[in-house]
């Protein structure tokens, strides 16, 4: 954090300190209400059987053993992982190339940019609803429907999310591409590098920070995906496999939510799933940051 030591920092620091109640108390209080307390209570309740916090009874790790023996949760985990991998690759590759093309002095590129970004303004529930209508309309021509099997639902969600997020990532890539120093491009041109070489040897290394950001965002977005999943298929189809019930297209966040709604005996299990989910997301986020950070340092 501290880059350089500022000598007379006290001149500014001391008076502010007196005003701490005004400057940090409101946010800190809201932060405790909206985050810290629910978080702590969540960890506690994941070890309880509860309907409301009032009647919570400590049950130890029972909830956690149920989490890991739950076929629905495992299926949701597999779905989420597969969905994350596919959408990270698809979104980033397409977004990067659109961004690349749009920065090549193309006629109408501002208009294109506007259009591609537009889906981000529409909420996930509304998007899910619109796309389920479109997919069902298309599949109807072939005598089938969106929730006929898990494959349609999975790729439907991938298409929806790609359509939504490509524009967003494209914006970040465009910013990254515009920051590539002109003289480096000039130098490459003088050295007689073709456009492919320029792309891979000059441009991509220089937009590494943007790539880091975008993969991070697509990774966490895919793991936290809820609204779109709920509105597009709601986890359907719902089948029985090997003696266990599975909602084929359900992702983790939706699985947690629907577990909570089974009945009050499952509240604790849902909360335990949420804790597992949190640890998973946290580990992935930290690992991804650490990995790309070390790569950036090398360059």
């Amino acid at each position: 954090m501290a880059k350089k030591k500022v000598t007379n920092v006290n001149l500014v620091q001391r008076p502010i300190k007196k005003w701490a109640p005004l400057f940090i108390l409101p946010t800190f209080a809201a932060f405790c209400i909206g985050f810290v307390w629910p978080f702590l209570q969540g960890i506690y309740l994941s070890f309880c059987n509860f309907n409301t916090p009032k009647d919570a009874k400590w049950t130890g790790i029972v909830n956690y053993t149920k989490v890991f023996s739950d076929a629905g949760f495992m299926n949701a985990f597999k779905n989420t992982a597969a969905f994350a991998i596919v959408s990270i690759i698809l979104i980033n590759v397409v977004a990067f190339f659109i961004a690349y093309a749009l920065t090549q002095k193309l006629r109408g590129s501002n208009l294109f940019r506007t259009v591609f970004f537009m889906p981000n303004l529409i909420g996930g529930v509304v998007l899910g609803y619109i796309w389920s209508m479109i997919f069902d309309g298309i599949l109807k021509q072939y005598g089938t429907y969106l929730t006929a099997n898990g494959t349609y639902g999975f790729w439907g969600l991938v298409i929806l999310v790609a359509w939504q997020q490509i524009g967003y990532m494209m914006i970040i890539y465009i910013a990254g591409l515009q920051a590539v120093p002109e003289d480096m491009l000039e130098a490459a041109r003088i050295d007689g590098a073709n456009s492919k070489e320029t792309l891979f040897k000059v441009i991509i290394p220089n937009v590494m920070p943007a790539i880091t950001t975008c993969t991070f965002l697509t990774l966490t977005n895919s793991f936290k995906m809820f609204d779109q999943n709920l509105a597009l298929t709601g986890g359907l189809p719902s089948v029985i496999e090997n003696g266990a019930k599975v909602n084929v297209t359900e992702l983790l966040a939706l699985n947690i939510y629907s577990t909570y709604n089974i009945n009050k005996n499952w509240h604790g299990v849902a909360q335990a799933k949420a804790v597992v989910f949190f640890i998973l997301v946290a580990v992935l986020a930290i690992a991804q940051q650490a990995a790309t950070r070390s790569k950036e340092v090398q360059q």
Partner: protein
Amino acid sequence: MKKAKKFSTASTILTCFFVVLCLVWLFPVFEVVINSFKENAFVNLEPFALPTAESFVGLANYIKGLTFGNYPFVLAAGYSLLITVVSVLLILVFCAMSAWYIARVNSTVSKIFYYLCLFSMIVPFQMVMFTLTFTADKLNLNTPWTIPIVYLGFGAGLAIFMFLGFIKGLPLEIEEAAAIDGCGPVRTFFLVVLPMLKPTLISVGILELMWVWNDYLLPYLVLDRTKFMTIPILVQYLKGSYGTVDLGATMAVIMMSIIPIIIVYIFCQKHIIKGVAAGAVKG
């Protein structure tokens, strides 16, 4: 000014390709538009057909959509707007203040708060959603007037982090000069620091705006939904009812919820796109 650098055939082909791609991109919205003018029965039957003399119902769906589902659309839109505006304002003002405090005061409190903020950014909403509901209910944060406090709390992490990144780059000398001139911290912040924060304010504001306006699950769980709905909740509610699903009216509701955002987007797209680009912080 670069003179017409004669566009090559390759770039013309590329332009054509992008025109087509844009049309594909706009198709879902177009789909909503055409279906919002069709009679309910035809929406499901021929979702891709343009309205015909038989299926066209004019503005009937829109009129119906205003009171559809026993919940006035205007009310839901009003609550959505109220929650979004108040939440974003709260986040901007209070998080900027906190970030400045954290940046300028080198204390344990600052550090703890900072790391808690970082930490909160990697916690998914699912982790706190059930318990947040209990807390919010206990503290009466379940109305559109009070739910912004929940948003301030849950959105603080990212906002403070982004403000901090910018404030750390601000020259301290200006604030020192203000202090020497007898400016107290409050005046210094509002008259000196806040104006300098403008680009970040826009950036954070836009990100939070897009989040709060479109958020479904948090208000669904926290709000007393026997009384209050927001637009996303209303849409989800319209989708699932026994017996009657009026697709035409639902499309009209969706249209009415999209149009204001599109208008705002068209007028502020420069800021929005800049805001998103600048907001893509490196974690």
